[in-house]
């Protein structure tokens, strides 16, 4: 067992060193910012679940049943998430980590290596789900008034669930790697996982959960849910966890402990089974994964190359960027997610009950159009954060090629800017035009939305590329995750500030123009001046937000060691 702990120490020491060896001035701010953001999410989760439970507890007869149904759903979803996350992290930890060759050359038994790898994968894949289950469980404890000790026991039940999910994920991977090499398996799992998620996401939206808050449909929907007396599966680990928590909430500690013992004994048996499976298959799968498969991509032959004109520098860099992007399967999973997001976004607008609103349709349509502009630009910010922000970090250690070539860093960044500008510009305009058509907005609002979006897309991309350059990390194993770093948050904050500023600058004059139109009166002199200044400021701010971050990004890259 000592060897297992010893194998975990480099990772732990690495984390400690990363925290301690940073410059004293930068780390507290970053930590504070991250902790604050995490706390906000945590508090938000608690508030939402507490509100829903209080709401349910006020419903006669079926209130408690609904609370338990929600708990059962949360546990099932948590188990699924833990399992999927375990599968993805164990593929990396068991078969793809850079230190594997070094670790396997050590005089340590294979099962010890695997157990240490699994422990690391368990922490990687579970911490976030477990962290966000705490506020949900806390809200149950408070609403059911079942005492503080219950929360501790609930935590143990959930821990057992997470261990089981992680071990089952590990066994699944060990078996699957016998058929598909680990490198390809990770891509297959990520893409198929995202596809399933997209389908579930779309399906969940299409069943129209908003009917739950529609007074006309409320009773029918609730009675339908209550009537779903689906039997729980006695062999499903989630059932043991749910039974245990339900008994704890009802203060039946004895049966709760029996359920928990059942759950933990299964977890331990699962760990032993994983070690047995590893003994039989792990080394075989590892050997298969370490071998490289040759992938051939035939380019144009000499005759065709001769006929082609020499491409410009811009085209050469753009082609290389697009080609690398398209061949990276992890990017495809992100594209599927974005497509699902866009479909849901547009679908939501088809369901808006504009005709039943007590507010005048004319006001509402234009008000919604304004809100829509903000929301669409926020979607754009998120998508640009996922694709354009990591674009410079994606160069990784091959950045020396650009640095030593006769291309200025400024030009290199502008080419990246153009590559991401075109698709994101189209996406933003499709979102705005389609939703505005569904809202039946006035021609003025349609033109204003199109022009504003056209003005805001370039600065958002420039902020992504520029701030992405300032905070570029060429040593990241997965640059796509860089948007969740401190730099990513700076980018998101800067974009949110920009969008808010533009919307605020436009909202006042637009309202004044509308009111003047409705009241059929001419605009006063100061109103014209105010509108003119606002509408002039918008393009000026947008232009500045394109030039400044791009220049700063190029300067930072130039000064990097």
């Amino acid at each position, binding site marked *: 067992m000592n060897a297992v702990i010893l194998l975990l120490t480099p990772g732990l020491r690495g984390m400690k060193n990363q925290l301690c060896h940073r410059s004293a001035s930068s780390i507290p701010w970053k930590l504070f910012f991250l902790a604050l953001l995490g706390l906000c999410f945590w508090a938000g989760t608690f508030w939402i679940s507490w509100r829903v439970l209080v709401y349910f507890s006020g419903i006669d007869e079926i209130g408690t049943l609904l609370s338990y149904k929600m708990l059962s759903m949360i546990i099932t979803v948590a188990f699924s998430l833990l399992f999927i996350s375990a599968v993805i992290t164990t593929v990396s930890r068991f078969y793809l980590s850079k230190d594997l060759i070094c670790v396997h050359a050590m005089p340590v038994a294979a099962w010890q290596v695997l157990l240490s790898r699994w422990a690391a994968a368990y922490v990687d894949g579970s911490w976030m789900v477990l962290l966000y289950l705490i506020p949900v469980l806390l809200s149950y404890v408070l609403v059911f008034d079942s005492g503080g000790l219950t929360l501790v026991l609930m935590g143990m039940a959930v821990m057992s669930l997470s261990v089981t999910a992680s071990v089952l994920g590990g066994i699944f991977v060990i078996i699957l790697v016998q058929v598909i090499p680990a490198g390809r398996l990770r891509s297959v799992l990520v893409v198929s996982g995202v596809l399933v998620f997209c389908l579930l996401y779309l399906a969940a939206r299409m069943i129209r959960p908003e009917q739950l808050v529609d007074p006309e449909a409320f009773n029918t929907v609730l009675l339908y849910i209550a009537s779903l007396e689906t039997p729980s599966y006695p062999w499903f680990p989630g059932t043991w966890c749910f039974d245990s928590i339900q008994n704890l909430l009802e203060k039946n500690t004895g049966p709760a402990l029996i359920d928990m013992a059942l759950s933990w004994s299964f977890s331990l048996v699962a760990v032993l089974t994983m070690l047995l499976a590893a003994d039989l298959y792990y080394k075989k799968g590892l050997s298969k994964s370490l071998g*490289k*498969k*040759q*992938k*051939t*991509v*035939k*380019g144009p032959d*000499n005759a065709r*190359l*001769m*006929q*082609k*004109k*020499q*491409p410009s*520098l811009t*085209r*050469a*860099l753009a*082609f*290389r960027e697009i*080609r*690398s992007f398209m*061949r*990276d399967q992890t990017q495809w999973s992100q594209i599927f997610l974005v497509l699902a997001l866009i479909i849901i976004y547009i679908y939501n607008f088809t369901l808006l009950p504009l005709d039943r609103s007590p507010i005048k349709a004319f006001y509402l349509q234009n008000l919604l159009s304004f809100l829509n502009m903000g929301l669409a630009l926020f979607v754009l910010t998120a998508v640009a954060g996922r694709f354009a922000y990591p674009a410079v970090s994606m160069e*990784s*250690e*091959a950045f*020396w*090629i650009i*640095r*030593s*070539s*006769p*291309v*200025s860093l400024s030009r290199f960044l502008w080419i990246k800017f153009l590559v991401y500008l075109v698709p994101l510009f189209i996406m933003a305009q499709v979102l705005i035009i389609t939703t505005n058509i569904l809202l039946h907005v006035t021609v003025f609002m349609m033109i204003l939305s199109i022009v504003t979006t056209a003005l805001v897309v370039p600065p958002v991309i420039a902020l992504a590329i520029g701030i992405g350059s300032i905070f570029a990390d060429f040593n990241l194993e997965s640059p796509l995750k860089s948007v969740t770093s401190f730099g990513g948050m700076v980018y998101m904050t800067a974009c949110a500030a920009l969008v808010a500023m533009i919307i605020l600058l436009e909202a006042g004059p637009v309202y004044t123009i509308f009111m003047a139109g409705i009241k059929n009166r001419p605009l006063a002199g100061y109103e014209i001046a105010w509108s003119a200044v606002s509408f002039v400021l918008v393009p000026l701010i947008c232009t500045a937000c394109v030039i400044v971050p791009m220049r700063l990004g190029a300067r930072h890259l*130039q*000064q990097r*060691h």
Partner: protein
Amino acid sequence: MISIQNITKQYQGVTAVKDLTLSIPPGCLFGFIGPNGAGKTTTIRILAGILLPDAGTVRIAGIDLNTRPEKAKQKIGFIPDRPYLYEKLTGNEFLKFCADIYGVGPKNFIATRDRYLSLFAMQAYADHLIESYSHGMKQRLVMASALIHDPAIIIVDEPMVGLDPAAIRRVKKLFRDLTDHGKTVFMSTHTLEIAESICDRVAIIHKGRILTQGTVAELQARAGDSHDRLEDLFLDLTGSGGIP
């Protein structure tokens, strides 16, 4: 061909290169040797235009690298010590990309590409993704890409790392051929036998300063009878010869 005037580079207060001055004529194969951490890679990266010096100037074929970097880099073929490449491109696509960046026309590209793919025994792998290459194959591809635009100056950091004996022999011959045709090669290396056997001139750097420079024969003559091999001189000068 390469003129380095008083360059200095510091990293967070630590001086990597101090007041370094060198002049390398055309057609010279220049060996740059020194122990680990002596400042070789920093100098090489400054010469390749990757790092900016804190002070001093570098002129490449008469062009100031600091004020006209793109023009100067056009003259250089750079081969780094670790061949990190675009993993999702094929070898062929990578060479084409480099050719386009350096403005090599299709006709010249095909001829040069075929010549170097053949020289480095890479034809069979040209359409494979780079992610499937071994370290040695990547190193050979980097060399081919650095030569694709027929540069006047080749700057190369530890060229023989990861190469098999046949490839080492080919690279040594290639560098000699290039210098015979008027090209300049600036090569940093740890392998003193290679420096001794192929370099026209050698400089020894230690703690960011040039300790001595000249032809191998000159250095040996300067050091006296006890130093009949470059290795002895190197160990003596850098103070790393004491084996316990």
